[in-house]
């Protein structure tokens, strides 16, 4: 068994909004091995983004963060900002959702890439420029030398996202977190960027954490999948254990997400089984299972007690009082 690269234990993030406590992340644990791909799936407000930002130290100062997140044994959560900055951008990098807004519009992209390099390494401007152009080539940016001097608005969405990836890869991170990295792109570009990320992952022997609301993406690309709801992990398993032949989705929420994916094979003019209702208000979580109010199969005990996340089957954890019997194929 390989040593865990990133080990997260009982991570908790609490905000205080309007005088009330909001548990954005309520005790999640996971492990990422080198070279592995982890997908964290959830709706908006499930806590998926907040948890990764907490690990990166990108949450506003004063947010209450508890638990542990160890990168190669180094505890990240207690570190001062100055200490954390040494890891941020070098060992641990992040790619964000909207490349149009995530790049400084008045700075040439080359400069934005070299900034990532020079922040962590002492190299000359010339050397940094060479490395940056190399990075642009690595992310398959056509005409890399020319693009180096251009501004973000001169690039298309897909190209901007490549720049973001180049920035993230500047110091050969061990873990790359892609937070909805393809959500703002059109479908074709999405596929291109995902392929790029996976190739890079292999080339650089990097661990990849994919944050998304798209279960299909997880099915296609991930080794391991975590499904989050209302701040908690509700299902956690290797992808093979969930999708495809022999896979069995257990938690009702995951099942509902899968069912909501439109299939070509489905007969036309039938209603799409979307998940009814909306994610719960984090300041007013229901007493029992957070998903119960929206679950078709909810029973009384679901509403009364919170199901614990337990490893019912080796390698496969879920938190549900009445899980699916036959998960069925994706």
């Amino acid at each position, binding site marked *: 068994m390989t040593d865990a690269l990133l080990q997260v234990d009982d991570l908790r993030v609490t905000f205080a909004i309007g005088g009330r406590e909001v548990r954005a992340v309520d005790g999640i644990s996971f492990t990422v091995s080198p070279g592995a791909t982890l997908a964290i799936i959830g709706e908006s407000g499930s806590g998926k983004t907040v948890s990764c930002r907490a690990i*990166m130290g*990108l949450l506003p100062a004063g947010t209450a963060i508890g638990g542990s997140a160890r990168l190669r044994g180094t505890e990240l959560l207690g570190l001062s*900002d*100055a200490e954390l*900055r*040494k*890891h*941020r*951008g*070098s060992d641990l*990098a*992040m790619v*964000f959702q*909207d490349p149009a*807004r*995530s*790049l*400084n*519009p*008045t*700075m*040439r992209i080359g400069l*934005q890439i070299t*900034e*990532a390099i020079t*922040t*962590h390494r002492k190299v000359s401007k010339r050397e940094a420029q060479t490395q940056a152009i190399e990075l642009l080539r690595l992310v398959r940016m056509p005409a890399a030398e020319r693009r180096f001097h*251009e*501004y973000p*608005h*001169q*690039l*298309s969405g897909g*190209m901007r996202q490549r720049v*973001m990836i180049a*920035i*993230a890869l*500047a110091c050969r991170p061990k873990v790359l977190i892609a937070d909805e990295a393809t959500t703002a792109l059109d479908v074709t570009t999405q596929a291109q960027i995902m392929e790029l990320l996976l190739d890079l992952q292999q080339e650089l022997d990097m661990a990849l954490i994919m944050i998304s609301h798209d279960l299909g993406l997880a099915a296609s690309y991930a080794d391991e999948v975590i499904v989050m709801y209302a701040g908690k992990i509700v299902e956690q398993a290797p992808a093979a254990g969930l999708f495809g032949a022999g896979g069995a989705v257990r938690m009702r929420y995951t099942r509902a997400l899968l069912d909501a994916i439109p299939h070509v094979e489905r007969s036309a003019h039938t209603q799409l089984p979307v998940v009814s209702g909306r994610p719960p208000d984090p300041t007013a979580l229901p007493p029992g299972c957070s998903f119960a109010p929206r679950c078709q199969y909810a029973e009384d005990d679901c509403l009364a007690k919170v199901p614990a996340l337990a490893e019912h089957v080796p390698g496969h954890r879920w938190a549900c009082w009445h899980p699916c019997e036959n998960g069925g194929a994706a």
Partner: protein
Amino acid sequence: MRIMALVQQTQHQQVEPGARDRARRVAGSPALRMVGRRLLAAIPVLIGVTLLTFAIMSALPNDTAQAILGLRASPSAVAALNHTLGLDQPFWQRYWNWLVNVLHGNLGTSIEGQSVNHELALHVPTTLGLLLYALVASVVLAIIVATLAARKPNGIADRISLAVSMLGLSIAPYAFAFLLIIVFAVKLGWFPVLSGAVTGPASFFKNLTLPAAAIGFGLFAIYTRILRADMVEQMQREDYIVTAKAKGVAPWRVLIRHALRNSMFTLITIIGLNLGGLVGAAAIIETIFQVQGIGNDLLTGISNHDVPLVEGITLFFALVTVFGSLFADIAYAVLDPRIRYGSSTS
């Protein structure tokens, strides 16, 4: 900053991407077109300004001839001089004559007998020096203070900057001038009460520091407030700031290299918009300190009913304001890469 957004909207709304690409590449860079557009738009304003200046002057009781000849002159002599000076011609005729003269660079003769051009040439450098001093000092200080304040919103530096800038916005420049005189000239004696002639760098700073401070304090206040607000807003709401932090860039560098950089554009526009007030304040401050600039001349001219002189100086001030804001517009267009380089070239 709604109005800011509106100003930007009206400035940028004519940059059409896509279909006009080919034509645009032929016509030259988008920045050039924008500059051209601005210049064209400024022309009616310039014409209007000259017309208004002249109209106001004409509407006022014009006793130039009387003033020249003195109170004892006979009415017929006054009438004769009026005729010679062309002052009894119809309005549009006089306006046209005057405009033609102006375009030839001739601003007429003051009642003292000297050419207005000469007066201006003599004193404009002093006024310009004073204005530049005030402007540069206030911008530099504003950048420093706003950056310190934006580093920690609601922190100590921030609260102090807000209090000081509120003071700067609320105090009348002439009142502040007297305060400065009382403290720095009378009590401390660091600067002279009245400004002497400016002959070199030493006398420049000695004589013009207090007047520049009187003018600049209000400017400093405005610039500081706007810069600070702009930077804080960026730091809190913009995604590229998060990206910069995610790279591991230290907070000060994020603030300066990303937020401040973008705020400079806003600053340029504000400077341009505020020039009218700058010039107005200069006039009164020059009088208080007896700086030998054209502001002082203006007031003297007004009290002497020296219409040609007042006309000339007023026109000069108005033109400076129009060109100043035009320049700011152009600078913005030239520096903002989104305008300079147009849209995607993929």
